[in-house]
């Protein structure tokens, strides 16, 4: 038994010589420490005790090699195959060392884990939203074909059908040009009518984008022709919900806007063309030649031919657009076209936000690193003696540096594990907080990429905060460390300097982050204060759409739309009996809907050349609309019941349009031509921000609903009652008139405004959280350095006190040091904040990237925080006791 053990042990030393080397060192340093301690107790001072102990022991390195010779192990450090072995041993040693100082370790761990966790969480969002490949087949060669209008200064417009076919025929760099649009349809045939999002797509495009049907078949070519058979494909979950199973769905039919479509197949759940919200697909039936060229109503997705670069394709597209401009000047003058990569279209708006957040958490991590490096430097100074003994035992500088780095990496590794846990929690929190509409956000998880990223930043973090202490501690000479012995506060002079540099960096980074957060916060507050141009409070909105199948809407027969008129008359009756409605109105668009635009011309003036024509939004409204929505009539009058379909054609302009058209003249009484009819301007209405608070509304023409052939739009109700209650009352009224007509998107306009602010609110909130974290970390950093410095200068301060310095002088000196460091950081940080401001300027609203309020108040806040951090160390300095400090020596 004994023999076996001995053999095993010998084998063990053979395999792992590094461990033996390390054990021998440990054994001998224990001996030396004990002996030194004994001499010290007998009254020798530390250096003398150490010297005596060493004399008595004899040559450390000599005996060490003799022990190793016993085991036939060379005294040199581990190399080659033994490297792994000695690394393992370093790790074990590091773990033990860290466990010996639980407070220090926990402090470092929390700091790092927070930093790493936040980074991993934000990165996982970036991975899911920006980096993960799109689910489309060969998504890199897909691009959206946009048109734009130089005269109206639109940058992205849908395409017109004839233009689409011309691009398809003339382009050689585009292999497939698919067209699509998605619209809400009313689905009937169920107990309750529903609004569903329907994707109209050209035949073959589902297979081309990589989403072939899982049951049944794709659309056939004849189904894409005008008046072709009406076919539909269903999303898997929709098919199951509607028909029980996918098999049962194929061959049945669905009723959309009162028309039956035969179900020819089922698409997989993960189909994202044209969007992941679409429930039903039908073929886009378009006639290439008869459709108006000026009607831009469909979107186009291009598959580039193999080997064609986007740039190349765009040159060709631009030249085709130029040809079309010449050939069809009436419709295409000033109209260009370009391809934009699908990826950019899917995630474009969010990429700046997400990268800004990533940069912000990166800064937080850097500050965390600086703090931990500071803690490690303090530790390293205290560990001078340990380092000295190990060097006396023959450990090389490299060996020691490696030991220190291992410790940092072990710490970073543990922090990474904790951080991943935090990231997991953080992702859930982010998903809760994030504004809706960020594409693919729900796919955010801790996937292998996120794991890899976490590993990488942890390793970098470990190196970053470990390098300084490692270099620092090994630089001092072994002998000097021994001579200085146990005095833990005898750090060499370079350590505090490095620590000060770290703190200045921290303050600078924190200032950058707090300034950026401040800019976003101010920008958000500005946005919130914007006057939308109408009163959103207590204003309820509900949409209806009268289907042409049951409410004939033939333009030629307007205004004799009997069914439509009857519906509105009965709705009016019902609403008048609704006690909760203080006032109500109809509008084709509610005040927060952009609506569509059209051309116009001032009667009596020569038509402007096509290249200078601009468009205005058309907003047909009922007489009560302005009063109900709270839109001020600045001049003239609102519409009245007198403005009937057979009455004088009238219109109301918004202020912008009145200013644009009639700068010096009186707009009232002027006539404006649109849709081939001249209308008299009877009033001027205040501007409304139709497209969101951050954008000026376009020029707009309000028309009386009665004089415009349109059926459907928004019902507006001003009410003080519970909106839910009013909504169900409204539903009941509509249901009474037409049980097959859905009332949809019922919401308060103030809620609509609130959710339109979700994105800037999210940005400001998240960045503020990171900024506060950074600020706290920086304050802790300043506090740490000052405390350390006070500890180091205790003797000096004691002497100064003994020589008659007053506590106030000492306090001033400490506070001065702290504020000096902060000021240096602030100056650097202002430069950084200036750069950061340029980076985020795209996210700002009515706030300059160099906003003076922010750039003055943030440094002040930082200085105040720094003053707070100075307080405790300064008080400790002021209480320096001359006697006690001298006794310490």
């Amino acid at each position: 038994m004994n023999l076996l053990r001995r053999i095993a042990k010998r084998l063990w030393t053979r395999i792992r010589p590094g461990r033996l080397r390390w054990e021998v060192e440990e054994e001998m340093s224990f001996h030396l420490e004990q002996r030194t301690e004994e001499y010290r107790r007998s009254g020798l001072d530390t250096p003398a005790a150490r010297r005596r102990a060493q004399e008595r022991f004899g040559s450390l390195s000599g005996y060490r090699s003799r022990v190793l010779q016993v085991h036939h192990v060379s005294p040199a450090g581990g190399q080659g195959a033994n490297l792994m072995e000695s690394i393992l041993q370093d790790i074990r040693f590091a773990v033990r060392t860290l466990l010996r100082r639980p407070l220090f370790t926990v402090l470092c761990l929390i700091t790092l884990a927070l930093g790493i966790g936040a980074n991993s969480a934000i990165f996982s969002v970036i991975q899911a939203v920006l980096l993960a490949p799109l689910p489309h087949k060969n998504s890199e060669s897909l691009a959206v074909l946009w048109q734009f209008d130089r005269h109206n200064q639109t940058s992205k417009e849908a395409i017109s059908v004839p233009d689409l076919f011309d691009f398809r025929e003339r382009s050689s760099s585009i292999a497939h040009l698919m067209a699509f649009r998605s619209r809400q349809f009313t689905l009937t045939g169920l107990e309750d009518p529903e609004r569903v999002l329907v994707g109209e797509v050209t035949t073959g495009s589902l297979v081309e984008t990589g989403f072939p049907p899982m049951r049944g078949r794709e659309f056939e070519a004849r189904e894409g022709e005008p008046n072709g058979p009406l076919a539909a494909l269903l999303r898997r979950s929709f098919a199951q919900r509607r028909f029980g199973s996918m098999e049962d769905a194929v061959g049945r039919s669905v009723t959309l806007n009162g028309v039956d479509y035969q179900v020819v197949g089922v698409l997989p759940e993960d189909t994202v063309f044209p969007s992941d919200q679409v429930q039903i697909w039908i073929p886009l039936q378009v006639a290439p030649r008869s459709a108006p060229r000026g009607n831009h109503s469909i979107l186009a997705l291009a598959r580039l031919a193999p080997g064609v670069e986007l740039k190349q394709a765009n040159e060709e597209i631009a030249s085709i657009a130029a040809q079309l401009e010449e050939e069809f000047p009436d419709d295409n003058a000033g109209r260009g076209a370009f391809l934009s990569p699908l990826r950019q279209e899917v995630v474009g708006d969010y990429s700046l936000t997400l990268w800004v957040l990533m940069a912000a958490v990166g800064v937080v991590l850097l500050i965390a690193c600086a703090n931990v490096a500071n803690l490690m430097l303090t530790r390293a100074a205290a560990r001078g003696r340990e380092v000295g003994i190990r060097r006396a035992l023959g450990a090389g500088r490299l060996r020691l540096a490696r030991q220190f780095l291992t410790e940092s990496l072990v710490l970073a590794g543990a922090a990474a594990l904790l951080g991943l846990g935090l990231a997991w929690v953080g992702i859930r929190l982010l998903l809760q907080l994030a504004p809706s509409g960020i594409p693919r956000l729900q796919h955010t998880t801790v996937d292998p990429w996120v794991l890899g990223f976490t590993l990488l930043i942890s390793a970098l973090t470990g190196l970053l905060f470990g390098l300084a202490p490692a270099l620092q501690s090994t630089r001092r000479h072994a002998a000097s460390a021994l001579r200085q012995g146990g005095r833990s506060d005898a750090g060499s002079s370079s350590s505090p300097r490095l620590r000060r540099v770290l703190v200045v960096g921290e303050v600078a980074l924190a200032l950058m982050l707090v300034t950026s957060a401040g800019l976003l916060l101010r920008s958000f507050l500005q946005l919130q204060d914007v006057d939308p141009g109408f009163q959103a409070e207590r204003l309820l909105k509900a949409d209806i759409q009268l289907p042409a199948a049951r409410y004939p809407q033939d333009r030629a027969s307007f205004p004799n739309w009997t069914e439509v008129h009857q519906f509105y008359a009965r709705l009016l009756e019902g609403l008048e009996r609704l006690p909760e409605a203080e006032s109500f109105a109809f509008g084709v668009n509610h005040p927060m809907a952009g609506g569509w635009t059209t051309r116009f011309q001032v009667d009596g003036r020569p038509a402007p050349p096509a290249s200078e024509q601009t468009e205005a939004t058309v907003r047909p409204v009922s007489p009560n609309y302005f009063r109900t929505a709270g839109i001020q009539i600045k001049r003239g009058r609102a519409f009245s019941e007198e403005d009937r379909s057979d009455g004088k054609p009238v219109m109301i302009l918004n202020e912008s349009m009145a200013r644009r058209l009639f700068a010096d003249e009186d707009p009232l009484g002027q006539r404006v031509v649109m849709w081939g009819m001249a209308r008299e301007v009877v009033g001027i209405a205040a501007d409304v921000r139709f497209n969101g608070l951050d954008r000026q509304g376009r020029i707009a023409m309000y028309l009386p609903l009665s004089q415009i052939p349109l059926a459907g739009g928004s019902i507006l109700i001003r009410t003080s009652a519970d909106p839910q209650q009013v909504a169900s009352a409204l539903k009941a009224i509509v249901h009474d008139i037409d049980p097959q007509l859905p009332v949809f998107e019922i919401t308060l306009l103030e809620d609509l405004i609130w959710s339109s602010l979700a994105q800037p609110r999210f940005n400001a909130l998240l960045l503020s959280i990171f900024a506060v974290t950074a600020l706290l970390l920086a304050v802790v950093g300043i506090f740490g350095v000052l405390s350390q410095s006070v500890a180091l200068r205790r003797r000096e301060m004691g002497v100064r006190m003994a020589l008659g310095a007053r506590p106030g002088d000492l306090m001033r000196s400490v506070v001065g040091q702290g504020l000096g460091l902060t000021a240096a950081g602030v100056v650097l940080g202002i430069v950084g904040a200036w750069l950061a401001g340029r980076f985020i300027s795209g996210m700002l609203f009515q706030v300059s990237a160099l906003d003076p309020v922010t750039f003055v108040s943030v440094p002040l806040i930082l200085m105040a925080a720094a003053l707070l951090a100075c307080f405790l160390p300064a008080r400790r300095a002021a209480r320096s006791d001359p006697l006690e400090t001298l006794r310490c020596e």
Partner: protein
Amino acid sequence: MSKASRKDLLHGTLEMLILETLSLRELHGYGIAREIERTSREELQIEEGSLYPALHRMERRGWLNARWGRSESGRRAKLYCLTEAGRLQLAQEKDIWTRFWKAVSRVIEDESA
């Protein structure tokens, strides 16, 4: 005692001293040094570093078992104890030493008588 003679003495007897010290209890290297010092009433002052090659040699021969434990102050320390083989060895060495010592004393007594 000159340095050279001290070394000679140790060369032959250090191992036996260690075995003897460990025959009563488990000890770390420093403890062994102190114990030898104490029992010899400070007569035998060894160069302490030389203990370690001896300890490792004896452990390798199977006379000693070693394990990592805690010192009185709670610090990690390598603790040695005697194995059966070690006990046998101690008995043999003691026997040889005693016989040698008796022989030598007899010679000395003879001379002095």
